[in-house]
């Protein structure tokens, strides 16, 4: 993976190969878990970074649940390499990995991602057909069992925010739900999107504040301050409903309600000129600055066990 070009966008097959190479190069730290299959049968790969032990407390990171947000999958690939490179060199990451595991799902919506490369660059949803409709796919970030079906999600299969027929109807979502429940010891959950430059915490489906709001807010401030220290990129932060809009059935609302206190979602860099077509030369700067915020969240999780 030293020769992998992190400064350009890659197809799903290239990312799958990268994952296998990383595992082969780091057999004592990295393993690949297939937590399920997408609707079209693609593996839902999760990289596990672990230095030993069983069922250690863990941190979950996923990228690319909305397929067209290419900078997220590209950043996830960079994070994977960063973790193996920095272990043993960066004291903070080393301390975390000596006590905790990190799970990283780089392509959370593989059917959609493949579709963006082959058929429709602007595709966001999954690729499961909807009976009775010509429109395909479900917004996997409206499909979680957290205020499912409430305001801020669409009941129309043709909408970009279609919630699906029922919570967890999408295997891409259900597979994570099953994994999180069966693991039972995940302490932080970070879901990464692009592009609005925001760091958000629960809730999206209700105006009720999360019971840990004060701590989550302070940690978000620390994370975006660290992020901005590299290139000055400015982020907004707060709860989903107060910072963007009401959204029901979202990922981190469900994880928070499962008891995962440090639940956050990112919206990565926005040049204000290109939208989802972020130039490839922005990938590494985006990944580098985001890593600083991720480290702030992971370090806080490590130092504040619960």
């Amino acid at each position: 993976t030293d020769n992998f070009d992190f400064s350009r966008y890659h197809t799903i097959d290239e990312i799958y190969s990268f994952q296998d190479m990383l595992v082969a190069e780091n057999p004592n730290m990295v393993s690949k878990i297939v937590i399920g299959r997408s609707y079209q049968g693609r593996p839902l790969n999760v990289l596990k970074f672990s230095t030993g032990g069983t069922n250690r407390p863990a941190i979950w990171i996923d990228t690319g649940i909305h397929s067209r947000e290419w900078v997220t999958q590209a950043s996830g690939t960079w994070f994977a390499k960063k973790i193996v490179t920095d272990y043993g060199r960066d004291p903070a990451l080393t301390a975390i990995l000596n006590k905790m595991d990190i799970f990283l799902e780089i392509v959370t919506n593989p059917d959609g991602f493949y579709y963006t490369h082959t058929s429709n660059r602007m595709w966001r949803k999954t690729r499961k057909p909807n009976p009775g409709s010509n429109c395909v796919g479900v917004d996997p970030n409206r499909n979680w069992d957290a205020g499912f079906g409430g305001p801020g999600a669409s009941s129309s299969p043709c909408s970009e925010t279609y919630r699906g027929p029922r919570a967890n109807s999408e295997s891409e979502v259900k597979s994570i739900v099953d994994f999180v429940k069966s693991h039972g010891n995940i302490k932080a959950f970070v879901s990464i999107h692009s592009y609005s430059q925001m760091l958000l915490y629960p809730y999206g489906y209700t105006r009720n504040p999360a019971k840990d709001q004060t701590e989550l807010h302070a940690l978000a401030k620390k994370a975006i301050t660290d992020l901005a220290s590299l290139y000055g990129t400015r982020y907004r932060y707060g709860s989903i409903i107060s910072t963007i809009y009401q959204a029901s059935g979202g990922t981190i609302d469900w994880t928070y309600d499962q008891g995962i206190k440090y639940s956050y979602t990112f919206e990565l860099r926005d040049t204000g000129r290109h939208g989802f077509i972020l130039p490839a030369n922005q990938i590494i700067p985006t990944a580098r600055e985001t890593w600083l915020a991720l480290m702030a969240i992971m370090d806080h999780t490590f130092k504040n066990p619960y």
Partner: protein
Amino acid sequence: KKTFEGDQVLRIIPKDEVELSLVKDLEDMIEFELDFWKDAADVDTPVHIRVPFHGLQSTKMYLESQGIDYSIMIEDLQAMLDEEQEEMDSAARVADPRN
């Protein structure tokens, strides 16, 4: 392969609650087939909307009739996608063949 010739991405910054509400109304006008890249969230917060070529005139007429200012963030989406594809192709050509 779906192409986006002539599609534009418009940027709108709602000045007040009335404009915000009018922009949100666009989300319900399904005949325009708009794709909200960045939703209408708040006053003074940019909204980005991909407008298919066939809906450009109607959408712009709606905005202008309501007195809502907009700018064109992406003039021709397909041109930008072509550039992205060319960049990927050229990067693949120069990549180490062992990759």
